[in-house]
């Protein structure tokens, strides 16, 4: 494995973490959006806000991590993606700004209408960012980004596969969030809310599954390279993802029928596993390309000492950041952090 390959793995670790934690955050915003009127949605919104508040900024940093690793270790790939997909990227950035400030302002703003506006901004932008991020990923996977950059500004992503991927991102974030929230509601001892989120997790899982199925068809049509490798080298991971997904479905169906309470210790790893396996399946499928099928990992890699620095920084992050993150999540789950 070359240093460039190691850096590609580092990049993928960042993508995975952002998809899991950032994705769940966006999903929380989605459930906030569809929770209904102020009165009806009060209890689920309270749980969502309590879960998100201490962790969303730390989760957001994974995006910065991805950008930094990409532009440092693979500058031509960063440039190619940015000069082609600038429209969805700018829209995703717009969503990030609206979402962060909406969330920060919502709890401190005066007057119900102001708080509603800030809350609505937060919730709607929670849709915007994952959807356009999905479009970016879908456009890259579809091979619509030329290696030299400056690809078509609109037709590179206004196509079935990128748009479907956007929808899939929204659905899988909603699915992850609902699964996490089942556990949070359970810890709060709120059985009704537990079933509330279990039903929503189920619905989101089905939507994500349907989008993924259509995505496979489109992949076959638009991104043959990825499709072929996904169904050969990547197949074990896809099977693993499907198995995790089925496990989650079984637990959730049992939970909604009240026959067996969902154990978060089983539910959360399975739900995360389903997403992680897909991301790594995608990684395996597009190897050795970073931007299929125009830029290989080795072609776009920075000089060796830069790559070494990225690897060292990643190891340092593993030693320093991961324990700190674990502490944050632990404190948060122990309910030692609160507003």
């Amino acid at each position, binding site marked *: 494995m070359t240093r460039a390959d190691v850096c590609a793995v580092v990049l993928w670790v960042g993508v995975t973490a952002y998809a899991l934690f950032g994705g769940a955050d966006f999903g929380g915003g989605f459930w906030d959006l569809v929770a209904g009127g102020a009165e009806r949605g009060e209890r689920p919104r309270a749980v969502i806000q309590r879960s998100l508040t*201490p*962790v969303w*900024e*730390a989760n*957001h*940093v994974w995006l*910065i991590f991805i*950008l*930094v*690793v990409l*532009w*440092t*270790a693979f*500058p*031509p790939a*960063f*440039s190619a*993606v*940015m*000069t082609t997909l*600038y429209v969805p*990227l700018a829209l995703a*950035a717009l969503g990030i700004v*609206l*979402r*962060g*400030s909406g969330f*920060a*302002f919502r*709890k*401190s*703003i*005066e007057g119900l209408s102001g*708080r509603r506006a800030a809350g609505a901004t937060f919730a709607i932008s929670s849709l915007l960012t994952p959807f356009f991020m999905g479009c970016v990923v879908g456009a890259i996977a579809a091979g619509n980004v030329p290696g030299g*950059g400056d690809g*078509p*500004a*609109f*037709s590179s992503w*206004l196509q079935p596969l990128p748009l479907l991927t956007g929808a899939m991102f929204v659905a899988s974030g909603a699915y992850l969030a609902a699964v996490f929230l089942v556990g949070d509601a359970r810890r709060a001892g709120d059985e009704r809310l537990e079933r509330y989120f279990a039903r929503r997790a189920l619905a989101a899982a089905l939507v994500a599954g349907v989008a993924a199925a259509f995505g496979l068809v489109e992949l076959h049509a638009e991104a043959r390279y990825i499709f072929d490798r996904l169904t050969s080298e990547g197949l074990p991971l896809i099977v693993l993802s499907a198995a995790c997904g089925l496990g989650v479905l079984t637990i959730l169906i049992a939970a909604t029928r009240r026959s067996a309470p969902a154990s978060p210790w089983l539910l959360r790893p399975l739900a995360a596993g389903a997403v992680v396996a897909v991301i790594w399946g995608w990684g395996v499928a597009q190897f050795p390309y970073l931007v299929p099928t125009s830029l290989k990992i080795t072609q776009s890699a*920075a*000089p*060796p*000492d*830069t790559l*070494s620095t990225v690897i060292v*920084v990643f190891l*340092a992050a593993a030693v*320093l*950041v991961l324990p*700190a*993150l674990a*502490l*944050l999540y632990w*404190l948060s789950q122990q*309910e*030692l*952090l*609160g*507003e």
Partner: protein
Amino acid sequence: MLRLDPLPLAASASNLLAAREQMAFTLGFHIVLSCLGVALPATILVANYVGLRRDDSDAMELARRWSKAMAVTFAVGAVTGTVLSFEFGLLWPRFMDRFGAAFGIAFAIEGIFFFLEAIFLAIYIYGWKRLSGWAHFWSGVPMVLTGIGGAFAVVAANGWMNQPQGFTLDAAGKVVDTNPVQVIFNPASGYEVPHMILAAYMVVGFGVASIYAAGMLKGRRDRLHRLGLLIPLTIACIATPIQLFVGDTAARAVADHQPAKFAGMECIQESGPDQTEYIGGICTSSGVKGAIPLPGLDSFLVGFSKNTEVTGLNDIPADERPPANTFLHLSFDAMVGIGTALLALGAWLAFVWWRRRDIPKTPWFLRAVAVSGAGAVLALWAGWIVTEVGRQPWIVQGYMRTAEAVTPAHGIWFSFALVLVLYAAIGTIAILVLRGMSKRWREGAAGPDTPYAPSAEATP
């Protein structure tokens, strides 16, 4: 299938201006928030320490209030910082393509610091309720260190743009080899980094103090306001004299390493010894109009002797001269002038404190403190204008022009307009929210943010 692409490529000259304006505006907005991220944690922890050590409930209350304000400013700072990361690619893709392998190194390190700061900031901000006093205090200490570390890494990246080193180019101009240590510890980071960290402490110190000074002028003379004025003001007044020393060193280094920038900001037309220092004025090719001239001082400041040779614009090729010399010159003068005024303010406080162990009684002192925060922010902006506009036409001094770096994408004017509207709204709401919080604290009313406040169950 939609086919909107074959729009004519925007003229790149127009793109360059739009991209530079957008970058300048978003950086100027973010830099104020990042000062808060760098220096507010230490200010809060000082109050927190005093509160714990002396069992001082006023100091504790200040720490608690400031940390609630920081929750808002840090969130906005995190997203406006993310926008800058996107802009590197959206506005300057050619720069990142060619130099990302070197320029990015410092950012990779910054990533760790920012990550740790975000984590510990969350623990500190949301830990008031349930963590024990000292455990909570110590959970805040990493914020201070990571804030400084993050500022170091980001400003080192900017230093590299001013004094690039630590890379080898092949015949095609591609970076083929890097030396990460040389990239990070480039000569400019030696003075730019402390200059910016001290600036952050000055902006936060004078800024927070000015809020309490304004309150005291309105007749709120309680102990809380006094402490809220003194803690940040003391920090700022310690930082200011060090800052003037660092800034002076920086100006000399710029004269040595970036003579074009120095000539631009000092309006030096002809190379030679015995250069006049001009205060204010308008730069023209035939000299400075309407300035206060101080003969020989410029040469003296550069080399401690009237005979020091200083490079003038006549020795810089026309296409390598910085633009907008009057603007540069006045920005530089504004920064130095405000810094000197703030130094005088600190000296005033120090003298009266030494004689009477009290702040000066005259309302003019409070008035001066009340405007010092805005002054510090203006000086911060002026300093960045000198650094960034003074480096033009280069994005990487001597290696790449800003015009070569800009994106060919269309719609930059549109995105700039959108950013202007969006940031104006966010800035206004942020100020309204902070003012609303402060009003509620004064009234002691149970506002929407009171869930943060310690509840009865929190005190064991």
